[in-house]
């Protein structure tokens, strides 16, 4: 069976205050876009007691660790530690995992389920303003290639199990691997852990495994302004109409979806 898996891990809402990044709201919108363009069942992994009929299944996990991140000048809680468990948690044999800030606007990712591949993930990204940022092309200046865990596809088989086990091992020993791969940023990022795991499984070399997704990772960044879901401003205004788009400014995205 095919399906999409989303994550909405967030801290409990205190005193009914709106979180700066409302992952549940983002997940709801993401699920409605998937339903509209891809007609696939969507499951949600969350640490909250949330219920909704928008999801095929809601899978509860415990919050065990936390870190923060600065987005658009605001410090937000960033809980990204359970991505490596998606192999065990997914209810589907073939799973497309995506961030909730990835806005689906077409059906091109449907073809991953007919690919016959065990893992598909993008190595390159397309900036909305064609900007070149070398720091997101490699893990370090002379480091290995960076893969983007924003969206990826996998099917359940022994090889992908090994892969996700390795990602978990890297996460559990992040200080060591961060030093080994000369990563300046102390924060754990799934993109980094996935890139390291791919490098290790390829025998510490670069190879053609895994293949890219059949969709460009059109991406805007943390400080970009989001006017609506189709218009983003980095250096200048850009329309992303009809293109699946990764909007990293989750704070602006949350505000937009709450309005």
């Amino acid at each position, binding site marked *: 069976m095919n399906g999409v898996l989303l994550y909405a891990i967030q801290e409990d809402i205190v005193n009914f205050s709106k979180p700066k990044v409302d992952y549940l709201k983002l997940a709801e919108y993401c699920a409605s876009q998937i339903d509209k363009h891809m007609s696939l069942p969507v499951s949600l992994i969350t640490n909250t007691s949330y219920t909704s009929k928008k999801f095929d299944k809601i899978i509860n996990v415990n919050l065990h660790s936390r870190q923060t991140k600065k987005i658009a000048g605001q410090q937000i809680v960033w809980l990204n530690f359970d991505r490596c468990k998606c192999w065990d948690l997914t209810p589907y044999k073939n799973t497309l995992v995506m961030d909730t800030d990835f806005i689906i606007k077409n059906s*091109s990712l449907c073809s991953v389920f007919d690919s016959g591949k065990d893992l598909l993930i993008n190595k390159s990204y397309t900036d909305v303003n*064609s900007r070149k940022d070398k720091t997101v092309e490699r893990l370090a200046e002379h480091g290995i290639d960076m893969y983007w865990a924003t969206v990826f596809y996998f099917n359940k088989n022994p090889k992908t199990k090994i892969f996700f086990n390795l990602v978990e091992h890297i996460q559990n020993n992040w200080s060591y691997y961060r030093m080994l791969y000369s990563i300046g940023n102390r924060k754990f990022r799934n993109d980094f852990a996935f890139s390291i795991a791919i490098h290790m499984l390829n025998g510490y070399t670069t190879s053609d495994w895994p*293949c890219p997704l059949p969709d460009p990772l059109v991406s805007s960044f943390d400080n970009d302004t989001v006017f609506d879901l189709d*218009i983003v401003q980095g250096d*200048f205004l*850009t*329309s992303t109409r009809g293109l699946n788009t990764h909007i990293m400014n989750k704070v602006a995205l949350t505000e937009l979806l709450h309005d």
Partner: protein
Amino acid sequence: MDTKLKTALEQSEYMRTFQNQKHLLKEKFKKDCIVYYNGGMFVIDLKFINSIKNPVTDIILDTNDIPVKINNMQDFYETMVNKFRFATESYYDAYVELCKYKDAKGLLT
């Protein structure tokens, strides 16, 4: 501001936005040309289509030089042609739509 300079700057803004939107369309086209078939990954272009029109063998090397056995060559050929047609026509339609607008604001609507 001088009118001539204002017009020039508007044109400059239009060109930058146009080039950027075209770049996004091209990236979409490139990804639309990726096809997975029998466990192989194929990036389609006219050269590839011509090479599979009259194949010498039923083993085709994919983009990563992995040999892939094609059981039904006719189906493979038609899949590739249809995918390439879809990708090219989508690119063309989007490009024509883009060219309709002569100012940066129009390109973003």
